[in-house]
């Protein structure tokens, strides 16, 4: 697969310490007839080259909107990035016009969308759809693009790639369609791949195939991956770093082992405690136990939340939590959380006499 080994067109790779993608205090809002929806309300993270970063959080917490904001895909009529910055390879994406964004999208940053069926065009063959990306972004001839498309299908381990290239999306299984999406996303050898719940609709055995494939391709092609999921099992499997979102905000950011072994934010702690665990052989419980619950429900994003968004459900919340927004504070190397009560500095304030 020699064609895949060349660096992306025009993208001189900078030194390895700079993050390839850096999102700071991103805020995206939708303007609906019954008010403003603060879908993303202060998200920050860095993505380094060849790194896999997972974004976790429950339904509606702003994961997909974060991804769409990065790609400049929030429809202007209904919503807008209202604040923050998105830096990609030295460029400020929020300042680019549509023409400039189009050159980046699908080429240097590409995305796998949450619904695979709706993002493949039913009237074109899958081979044609992969080739089209290559013609548009890499200026390949029809013939060269068609050949590359077959190579890409083989790369994502679709058996009999030449025949499959001539088939339509409905002729493929869900797992194969998801591989085609990956093939399209990787066709131009992007620096960043954003994958929005790429395996959620798939069965576990097929999910395992796809995750393995993504990790293998990442290692081979050096693509940095943002993987959006609500499944902490998937996170443990593939992530190097994780951000936990809650109600449009970053609640916690850490390496995967720090996050799972030493969670700081009460929401993260609750989330980890509330998932049923597979027990290890020998350590099996003989009776069924109750799971730890996070009481209550997620807040509405239509009202401004002055304090911590988790405060109404948090068991250690104080007065300050409901009135002042906790900043993301460092808890250790590459570990930060936005919580007043568990922050290292809270130990100081708690012991120091009030003045």
């Amino acid at each position, binding site marked *: 697969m020699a064609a895949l080994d060349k660096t992306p067109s025009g993208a001189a790779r900078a030194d390895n310490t700079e993050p390839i993608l850096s999102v700071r205090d991103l805020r995206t809002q939708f303007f609906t007839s019954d008010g403003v929806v603060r879908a993303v309300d202060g998200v920050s993270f860095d993505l380094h080259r060849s790194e896999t970063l997972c974004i976790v959080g*429950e339904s509606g917490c702003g994961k997909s909107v974060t991804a769409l904001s990065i790609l400049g895909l929030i429809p202007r009529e209904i919503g807008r990035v209202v604040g923050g910055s998105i830096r990609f390879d030295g460029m400020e994406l929020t300042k680019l016009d549509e023409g400039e964004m189009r050159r980046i999208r699908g080429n240097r940053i590409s995305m796998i969308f949450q619904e695979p069926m709706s993002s493949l065009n039913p009237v074109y063959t899958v081979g044609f759809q992969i080739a089209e990306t290559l013609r548009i972004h890499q200026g390949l001839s029809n013939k060269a693009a068609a050949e590359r498309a077959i190579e890409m299908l083989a790369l994502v381990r679709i058996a009999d790639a030449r025949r499959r290239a001539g088939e339509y999306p409905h002729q493929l299984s869900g797992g194969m369609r998801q591989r085609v999406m990956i093939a399209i996303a990787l066709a131009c050898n992007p620096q960043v791949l954003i994958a929005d719940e790429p395996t959620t609709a798939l*069965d576990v055995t097929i999910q395992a*195939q796809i995750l393995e494939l993504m990790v293998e391709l990442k290692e081979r092609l050096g693509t940095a991956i943002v993987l959006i999921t609500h499944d902490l099992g998937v996170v443990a499997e593939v992530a190097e770093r994780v951000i936990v979102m809650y109600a449009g905000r970053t609640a916690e950011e850490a390496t995967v082992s720090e996050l799972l072994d030493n969670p700081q934010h009460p929401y993260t702690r609750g989330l980890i405690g509330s*998932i049923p665990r*597979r027990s290890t052989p020998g350590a099996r419980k003989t009776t069924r136990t109750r*799971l730890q619950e996070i009481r209550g*429900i997620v807040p509405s994003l239509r009202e401004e939340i002055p304090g911590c968004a988790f405060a109404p459900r948090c068991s250690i919340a104080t007065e300050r939590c409901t009135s002042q927004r906790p900043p993301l504070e460092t808890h250790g190397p590459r570990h930060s959380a936005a919580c007043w009560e568990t922050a290292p500095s809270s130990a100081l304030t708690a012991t120091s006499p009030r003045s």
Partner: protein
Amino acid sequence: MSAPGTPSPSADVVLEVKDLKKHFPIRKGLFSSVVGHVQAVDGVSFSIRRGEALCLVGESGCGKSTVARTIARLEEPTAGSIVLNGTDISALGEGEIRPYRRQMQMIFQDPYSSLNPRLTAGEIVSEPLTNFGLAMGSDLQARVASLFERVGLRADAMAKYPHEFSGGQRQRLGIARALAVSPQLILADEPLSALDVSVQAQVLNLLIDLQDELQLGYLFVSHDLAVVEHIGHRIAVMYLGRIVEIADNASLFDTPLHPYTEALLAAAPVPEVQRTKRERIILTGDVPSPSAPPSGCRFHTRCPYVRPECSRIDPPLVEVAPGHHVACLLRPGPSAGHAAP
């Protein structure tokens, strides 16, 4: 002989299903002639006792929902018997089955579409009580109020409509409605799948509490192995319309015997840091179509241990250890030991 997975025949058995089949006709063409059948459920047997949760796991399309829906007689069984508290209800007509519907209630995956949007929450829960003539007037009000309390909904929520509830609250409403007629058996089809992670724990706890308190039998359909391990007393693994393995919780998770079960357990991601690279069997290939299941063992097209005879011989479900049944040619019985390569 008792049905596979029956620990011991006893009066405690709420449900006994024997050789249940449900085939859907595939129609094509101008005259909708039947060109084949989807063998959604193709010979499934198990039993459920009072207070016991039997979980049904397996991948999409393997027939889990069809098993539950056929038992609930929402689908006509093609063959087999469904014995509910001693009566075979598989052949009863619509009129005759009515009294039995009270004994089993279904909880659905989608709390959004399974509740009538035009009824208030109070009406949704009281409807089955009035339909079966179980309560009226102030008695009805009191029973509905206590059901609301039981599932953790506030009494003032009775006047609200389904769209005003969150997903978890709607699922509680569905559970309250199912409990209204005091059933002995609950058929729960993916009751947590549409819920957020933090809400799943709430509903799962509620289902466990209710079962322990009311000694309900559960048929719990799920594709989430961690949930199944948490709630299930016994687990049945389905593949293409068949049960390929059924065992008590500890046996199934500690010593899975069917290669498909093994692969399923290996494939499910676990939320723990992977300190060492996990040895995992990753199945290749897709799930075959249930309208043309593979010959012999239905799993042979994807099985990592496949042998030539697997494509010829259809392995029966055999008891290889007490209460542990498996359908695989490599597992001939307890005496022969494990023949895994």
